[in-house]
């Protein structure tokens, strides 16, 4: 060996594989403004579409007159439900088993609902046309409060469902009822409550909000009449699903549909489902024979495409006097707006809300969810969370705090007392999940030690005394949150979307020079897949990450996958990548054995190639094997070096974390300051610590926004009053607190590389931490539960209601 021979450490580092803080390769183009987004797609002769939208939340559409609009220079067509009926597309199926109007068919059911689609030669003309379409409405009484949806005299919203006593998920109890979903053992749970020494009950609401990616939803549809082919560029988190859905509803052969999701400027669940804009642009292109672009503006995005949450959770916990939980009972009233347009796996009308037992060993639990219609925008999507997991985490984490308060126990102590113990994994929860792995006590204690939790509590006690003495007008809150997520949907035995199992996929092709291309069924919207996917491959097959090109989003080239949402990419596609890489490695081993003239079993893997056991000088690098794969494979073996893997996960993964928020609130103005926020995440094996940190920062910022003010609010007349970033809280760098991140590592036992996924954990765990901090601050004044969002005026109102301000 001479000085030139790289050390093993140098060889490992050169790969930039798993565990490396590799810089994001996609940022080279993003930071230079060279990304290629849907709105950058400009095709010759391209037309533009824009919507006429309803000013009314509930009204009959008496007539639509397009005469004046068609006189506007540049306006070519005005499409209405009547037009769409000729191609049977006035309605479309939702992912939740409901149907949704594409354009108002006789009625409008929410403010800003799509009524007509104006097609013009440019965006300005389209908008001028929109302003000239005359729609005559007969207003109907709006239904805004979900608690009134099932009143006997509630207005009938969905006339199309008249007489339908059964929906996609079983019987309907009322004309505005969508489904009832029940899980768990009711008798056992009721018994636990009747025997309970202590019980709490609280209606905990998680308000309506919106994923609000900076890039709104948009598409360009181009129909080639000669070939009969439709190409769609769109902001799609799940491009293959879109292709199949388009094929099924537009009755076009699937091979004639090409879906391309170029760079995406954030998705957060907003870009999973299908929206009227996509259908209208496609129909407009088919009708005109020209490409048609549809780009949503901010108001449209916030008020018409899918909202998130709007869950009203009546929550009860039973416990012993010394703080051991004995039962959990939850009833959820789920407001879905005018159409149930959740993007959950098909069999899960309330997503995985039955993770609501959280990190605690509940011997028994029962859950019932009622979905109802209101005159609001349809949804709700999973805003940076696995399906309804954020709602569940908020529900249980808030309720545990309420129980702690009732028991006069520290909320951290109550949690420690009830955690599922490390030796109980794999753990079967009372509501039916099998938690793969966890070490909650270690994570919680690390959080408490690192933050100086005990000292903070002491400081809080002193501040409370000072407040009582009138020396300060500031109150201090500590928000503890310990969440368990369920991500990685999911095993084919319980997860599908419209009948397609929720596997994911990877195809790797190695080129002769030791480089390669890898394609997946996922689609990054900012998560950094181009960086991390290559890192998995680098470690698995010993080729530098820089030599692996990662490509996603083109349904013609990528293998079929279910897309990116619900923190499923790493648990599912990440596994497929490792498995595909292992197939490559297996073939590579045969080639190496042949070239080194030994038996395969005599070879062992060593960082970036194979070496002969006991003869470390006799090696063959993966790079050389790639070359050999194209000229000297063993007799009888096919040349080339490529592999495909479709991975059907055996189980979900269960990331967890311990968060603490320290907040000070000025009771006179309600102004709060997040003094400190600590987030410990355990996402199993860590692929790229820098990307994890970035994901945690982003998710916490969203959680902060949601808990502290971000909402989609309707007034009593059904008008949506939060249609812009002036009123819809989107924090800037100035408002965003400083984030402290930390971790423990408990690998997933069933995942090929032990990774669990992290993208959504901070949103899931963050919201309860903020909300618990506010509630904790006010608790000594007598508060038990203050509803989110905790914006300034509501904090002031809480203080006022508690008598703390005059």
């Amino acid at each position, binding site marked *: 060996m001479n000085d030139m021979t790289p050390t093993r450490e140098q060889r490992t580092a050169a790969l930039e594989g798993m565990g490396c803080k590799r810089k994001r390769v996609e940022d080279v183009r993003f930071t230079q403004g060279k990304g290629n987004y849907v709105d950058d797609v400009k095709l010759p002769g391209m037309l533009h579409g824009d919507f006429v939208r309803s000013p009314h939340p509930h009204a009959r559409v008496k007539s639509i007159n397009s005469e004046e609009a068609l006189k506007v220079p540049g306006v070519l067509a005005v499409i209405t439900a009547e037009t769409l009926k000729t191609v049977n597309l006035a309605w479309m199926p939702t992912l939740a088993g409901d149907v949704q109007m594409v354009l108002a068919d006789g009625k409008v059911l929410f403010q800003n609902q799509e009524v007509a689609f104006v097609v013009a030669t440019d*965006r300005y003309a*389209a908008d*001028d046309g929109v302003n000239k379409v005359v729609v005559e409405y007969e207003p109907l009484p709006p239904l805004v409060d979900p608690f009134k949806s099932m009143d006997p005299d509630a207005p009938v919203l969905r006339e199309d469902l008249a007489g339908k006593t059964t929906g996609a998920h079983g019987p309907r109890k009322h004309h505005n009822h969508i489904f009832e979903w029940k899980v768990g053992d009711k008798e056992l749970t009721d018994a636990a409550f009747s025997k309970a020494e202590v019980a709490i009950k609280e209606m905990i609401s998680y308000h309506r909000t919106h994923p609000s990616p900076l890039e709104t939803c948009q598409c360009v549809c181009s129909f080639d009449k000669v070939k009969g082919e439709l190409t769609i560029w769109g902001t799609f988190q799940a491009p293959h699903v879109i292709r199949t859905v388009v094929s099924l509803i537009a009755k076009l052969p699937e091979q004639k549909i090409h879906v391309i999701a170029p760079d995406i400027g954030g998705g957060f669940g907003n870009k999973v489902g299908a929206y009227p804009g996509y259908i209208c642009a496609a129909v407009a292109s088919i009708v005109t024979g020209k490409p048609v672009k549809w780009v949503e*503006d901010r108001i449209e995005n916030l008020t018409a495409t899918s909202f998130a949450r709007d869950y009203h959770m009546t929550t009860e916990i039973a416990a012993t006097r010394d703080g051991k939980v004995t039962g959990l009972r939850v009833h959820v009233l789920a407001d879905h707006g005018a159409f149930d347009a959740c993007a959950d796996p098909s069999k899960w009308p309330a997503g995985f809300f039955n993770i609501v037992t959280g990190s605690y060993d509940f011997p028994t639990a029962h859950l019932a969810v009622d979905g109802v219609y209101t005159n609001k925008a349809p949804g709700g999507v999973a805003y940076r969370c696995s399906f309804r997991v954020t709602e569940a985490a908020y529900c249980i984490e808030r309720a545990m705090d309420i129980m702690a308060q009732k028991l006069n126990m520290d909320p951290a102590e109550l949690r420690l007392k009830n955690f599922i113990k490390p030796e109980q994994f794999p753990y079967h929860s009372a509501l039916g999940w099998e938690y793969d792995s966890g070490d909650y006590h270690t994570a919680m204690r690390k959080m408490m030690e690192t933050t100086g939790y005990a000292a903070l509590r002491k400081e809080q006690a002193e501040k409370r005394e000072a407040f009582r003495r009138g020396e300060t007008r500031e109150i201090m809150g500590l928000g503890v949150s310990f969440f368990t997520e369920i991500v990685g949907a999911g095993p084919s035995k319980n997860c599908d979307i419209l009948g397609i199992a929720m596997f994911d996929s990877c195809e790797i092709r190695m080129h002769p020079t030791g480089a390669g291309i890898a394609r997946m069924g996922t689609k990054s919207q900012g998560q950094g897949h181009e960086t991390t996917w290559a890192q998995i491959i680098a470690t698995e097959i010993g080729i530098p990450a820089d030599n692996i090109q990662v490509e996603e989003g083109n349904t013609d080239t990528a293998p079929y996958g279910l897309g990116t949402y619900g923190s499923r990419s790493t648990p599912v596609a990440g596994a497929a990548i490792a498995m595909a890489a292992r197939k490559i490695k297996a073939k590579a081993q045969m080639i190496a054995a042949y070239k080194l003239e030994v038996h395969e079993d005599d070879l062992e893997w060593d960082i970036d190639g194979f070496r002969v056991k006991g003869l470390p000088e006799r090696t063959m690098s993966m790079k050389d094997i790639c070359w050999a794969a194209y000229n000297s494979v063993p007799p009888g073996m096919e040349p080339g070096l490529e592999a495909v893997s479709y991975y059907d996960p055996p189980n979900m993964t269960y990331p967890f974390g311990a968060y603490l928020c320290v907040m000070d609130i000025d009771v*006179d*103005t309600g102004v709060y300051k997040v003094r400190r926020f600590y987030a410990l995440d355990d996402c199993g094996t860590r692929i790229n610590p820098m990307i994890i940190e970035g994901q945690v920062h982003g998710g916490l910022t969203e959680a902060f926004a949601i808990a502290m003010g971000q909402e989609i609010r309707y007034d009593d007349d059904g008008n949506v009053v*939060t249609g812009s970033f*002036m009123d819809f809280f*989107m924090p800037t760098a100035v408002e965003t607190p400083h984030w402290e991140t930390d971790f423990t590592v408990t690998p997933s036992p069933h995942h090929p590389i032990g990774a669990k996924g992290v993208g959504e954990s901070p949103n899931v765990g963050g919201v309860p931490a903020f909300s618990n901090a506010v509630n904790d601050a006010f608790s000594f004044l007598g508060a038990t539960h203050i509803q989110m969002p905790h914006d300034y005026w509501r904090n002031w109102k809480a203080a006022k209601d508690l008598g703390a301000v005059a």
Partner: protein
Amino acid sequence: MIPGSFSYHRPASVADAVKLLSDLGEDARPLAGGHSLVPMMKLRLASPAHLIDLHGIAGLKGIRRDGNNLLIGAMTTQHDLLESQEVAGSVPILCEAALLIADPQVRYRGTIGGNVANGDPGNDMPALMMTLGATYRLEGPQGAREVAAADFYQGAYFTILEPGEILTSVSVPVPAAGHGYAYEKLKRKVGDYATAAAAVVLTMAGGKVATCTIGLTNVHETPLLAVDAAKAVIGTSLDAAALKKAASAAEAIMSPAADARGPVEYRKHVGGIMVTRALQRAATKAT
């Protein structure tokens, strides 16, 4: 969020701008930084057929001292205010308030003329100009006139500007040496208009308030001068009782709208607090 069509004009002199505005009538609007007007056009709440861009008029921009007054050209941007040594030295409250307007991008474009002429009760400069006793120079088809800021505002987006008139400059009397000042603004986030804001300019003598003016932003359909509140603190050492009196006198003239920033009661309550805090901070700055 797509504006309707309009014609664009870029006159080179105030006279040309006034002529264009008079000739084109109701359908024409002056365009300054565009950061209030263009958003309204995108929402089609405003659909002017003609925009008269004032950027081509050389004389409308700049800050200079004229005796005891600070003269600010209408097209001076909020960023220019923040950069000016003259402003920082003689009327520092202008810098303090300008820094609380939106974000750097808006301040690079938004002008003082547009801010005060717009008539938006949410804008910060109008109440401040009233507090400082500023006057506006208006030039129109009938010639030029000077109007006190306090007489300019008549209702939301409704001012005494006559058709064809342009606001060409703002004249701010330089407050007495040693004055104390503060602009207290409660907002939900960067880029938001005030939930409530208060401007205070005062002088102190022997530990007591000698003179005091208080202005209020976004708690009424026009900016307000809180005259009684100011009276309530004159001659006091800003003790708790005086502060309380001032806050309630100020709250008594507020009539904000309920909006996403909070209900009426809250906006008035924090309006009172802004007054209290501005008074206290202004006093610490007075010498």
